[in-house]
């Protein structure tokens, strides 16, 4: 790992000032992706600005029809939260299958969403549940947030402060775990909001996306049978040595059907 300067601001304002100030600074949340990246010397920032001491970024609460999760809330806390479990059990169960228990004690929702690893779980929830990404500057709609592999709508110096999840009528998340890494080969969050159905897919492509054909079919008839004939095209989906794009395309259908059945 290359050396860097380390900063531990105690407030959001201080963090914003630091990230604006440093030429090649990087924010660190749980560090579950960033630290392995630095260890392998795939990145070498000049400064690390640790958000762990920023109290206002932590916590889970219900506000009206939304669950608001502070960006620095770790996966284990989301998985164990009674507030989340009673309002959006699918979100709690998603948080409970990220990585492994030790990773869930450190990794955060803000870090996961800002990093936008194509195989991360949370992006599926953000897209599927139509979450709002709240930053120090603005509120970004889920559909506008993920752009490409590790690329989001976040601007330089923009910090996610919380994620607001509308509470669906029904929702479920199904994940197919990578045989080696345990990451999502395909993860599908299906959510029903009245007549609206959203299907958020992670793992399959460069970034999380909505499976619109599935959504259309499910809006007509919210049942696993309704999407039995819906096929995902493998074009543009990821391939690796364990799972080809064709297989991923197939798994999107399977996971979607299972999620609908579970929701």
């Amino acid at each position, binding site marked *: 790992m290359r050396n860097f300067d380390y900063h531990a601001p105690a407030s959001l304002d201080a963090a914003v000032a630091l990230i604006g100030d440093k030429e090649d600074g990087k924010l660190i949340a749980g560090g579950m992706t960033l630290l392995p990246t630095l260890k392998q010397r795939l990145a070498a920032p000049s400064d690390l600005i640790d958000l762990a001491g920023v109290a206002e970024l932590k916590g889970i609460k219900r506000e009206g029809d939304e669950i608001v999760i502070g960006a620095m809330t770790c996966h284990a806390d989301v998985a164990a939260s009674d507030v989340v479990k009673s309002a959006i059990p699918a979100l709690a169960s998603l948080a409970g299958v990220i990585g492994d228990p030790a990773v869930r004690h450190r990794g955060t929702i803000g870090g996961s969403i800002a990093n936008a690893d194509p195989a991360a779980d949370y992006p599926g929830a953000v897209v599927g549940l139509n979450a709002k990404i709240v930053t120090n500057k603005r509120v970004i709609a889920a559909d506008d947030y993920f752009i490409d592999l590790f690329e989001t709508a976040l601007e330089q110096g923009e910090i996610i402060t919380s994620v607001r999840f509308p509470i669906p009528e029904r929702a479920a998340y199904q994940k197919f775990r990578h045989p*080696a*890494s345990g*990451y999502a080969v395909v993860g599908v969050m299906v959510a029903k909001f009245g007549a609206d159905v959203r299907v958020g897919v992670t793992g399959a492509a460069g970034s999380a996306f909505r499976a619109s054909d599935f959504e259309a079919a499910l809006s007509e008839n919210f049942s696993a049978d309704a999407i039995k004939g819906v096929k995902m095209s493998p074009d543009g989906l990821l391939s690796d040595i*364990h*799972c080809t794009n064709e*297989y991923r395309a197939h798994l999107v259908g399977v996971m979607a059907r299972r999620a609908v059945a579970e929701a």
Partner: protein
Amino acid sequence: MGQFGIGQPLRRKEDPRLLRGEGRYTDDVNVDGQLWAAFYRSPHPHADILSIDPAPARAAPGVAAVFTIADLDADGVPDMPCEVELSDLSGRPMWKPMRPILARGRVRFVGECVAIVLAATQAQAREAAELLKVEYAPLPAVADSESALAADAPVLWEALGSNVPVHWQNQDSAPVDAAMAAAAHRVRVRIVNNRLVPSPMEPKAALAAWDAQAAKLTLWAPTQGGRRIQANIAKRYLRLEQDQLRVISQDVGGGFGMRGQTYPEFVAVAWAAKQIGGAVKWRADRTETFFSDYHGRDQVNEAEMGLDSDGRMVALKIVTLVNLGAYMAENGPRMPIEGGGRIIPCCYHAPQFHFSVKPVFTNTVSTDTYRGAGRPEANFLMERLMDEAARATGLPREEVRRRNYITQFPYRTPMGYVIDSGEFARGMDDALRMAEWSTFEERRTEARARGRLRGIGVAAFIEAAGGRAPTEDMRVRVDAEGAVTVFSGSHAHGQGHDTVFSQLVNEFLGVDPDRVRLVQGDTDVTPRGSIGTFGSRSSMMGGGGLKASCEKIVAKATLVAAHLMQAEPAAVRFETGVFRAGASETTFSEVAAAAWDARRIPEGMTPGLDESCLFQREAENFPNGCHVCEVEIDPDTGTPEIVRYVAIDDCGVVLNPLIVHGQVYGGVAQGLGQAMVENALYDADGQLVSATYMDYGMPRAHHMAHVEAGFNTTPCRTNPLGVKGAGEAGACGAPPAFIGALVDALRDHGVTHIDMPATPEKIWRAINRANAPA
């Protein structure tokens, strides 16, 4: 004799220390003033090195030295040889390359060491290594053995002119061809036995410290026995007397066959320490171990079996390619021939047998011994053939095996090895009964109703244990208080020798295991003739040597006891720690005290109770077993789940069932790892694409099922303890049992074989082959 003796499930003595975090592995050791080493490794699979400019690295902060092959050549350090001797049927010997410690003029695989950088800290050494300027002219590369046979394939060794250093055959194929042609049934299989990374959890490391005063180098390194690398490194590479090098491997984080070898990194670190007259430490990160640890397996087998109308084998032909990698590791070409060939055709009688092996050079890291070392490949091949034979003959899978089992012992194999004992049918019957084989179809039907595909597989296997080296050196010293120290030539790296050898001492001398101390892993104190632990040899070799040493102790102590009791030695009996002669008796402790007292021993006797034995074995032993695996497949995703696993093993006399079962479970996990997820994959350009645990699938707790295990003991007839090796059996049984179960689950889909690793996608594709795009 002792209550903690042979056969008792004694909890391990080594555990409290390891459980408290008090183990002492190589990286736990530091020496004042040590420098840190980092290797600059080739990013190219195949390239000429046009120039190396170490200047930018030498100028980096903290750097003390940068060495390349030029420095080693200037000091006359020789290249690494391969000692394996093979020849073709005409008697022409195998062509063998030498491997330079650091690349000389050309690199032949990604990760090959080109330079070693020494700096004050590890971070500085690594950063400086990245600054080394090497100019390359890339060459075309080839990574898999079949491609390397092509006429236009890149050739790794121009002096050889092809990539095949020998075409070895056991005999001319004509008699086998004739028998095959006459066979009532013929079945064929083609198997790609996947390349594996052994992956012991402790990464390779080395710390070498030169003591100028003593003119002695100490090398800490994880090995399977320090003596195995001591003489080689001292004499060949450093031009020292053997005892001027002390090798310490106290605690070793797993071995599995890949820690027996003299790795070039060990030589480079040792040489560098001597060169600078100081201490040098190196620790590989995990990715480096993927690039530089010797890999295992990587064979392509094509085989044909001929059977008569009763389903009895009449002929067997096996054609094997083994991927050697770029160089020839110490045992590389030996894997299929001696490794697997020792036991082929496994549990079965083959009247006619032809075996053809071509080792093949490719632009990959070398392959060598990995748990089973040729025997898992051989057993997998035979069991796949047997399942095919069942299909062809219409016999049940267990029946075709039963008809072909070797039943008369001793049995001489086609390759000339003699199997002393075994009860293969009985072991299979036990396994089938425990696995409820006879009622399986009910479970298949029940699973189908749940939308799951269920299958069951049976695999018989045989192993050869004892390793190549026919001797082991053990020493037992009893002090005047009656406590025992065992100086062990065998070397534990997880096998629990401290416990098992203490049990043996308890058995033979009646001494409490807590009063037995094991000394191992330090060439200054372990016996001179120590070999180490590999090839599942320690129970027979270490145990045999220990028994013989204890017998010498008892023989001498009997003379002392007779002297003390004023009895005739012939009248003295030793039982449960007590010497008796008529009505008088004296304890082992009392005799031990007397033995060290020159005034209390018979005249002419040398005081002391300290005996050793360079144990020479009569033959290898042949562990065997039968495993049954039951799986369920989720047809939507192709995900397999092991729902039941039964392992019946013949490990001969069981010294400690807790430990022997532990060896079986571990072997099964490695076998299932190979069958389910593990794959060291090079792309066509020679880049290793599975170089971290993110891409190389390791078997995890959720892949495994609870293993139900039992023993089918037939004591070995050729060693004094009746033991058979336990370490590698599981890795032989699990792959064919698992793949057999998968194929059985998919039989209605026309599936006859799935290559390993059988990933969910492969299984899904097999299910959907009819519909899937080509």
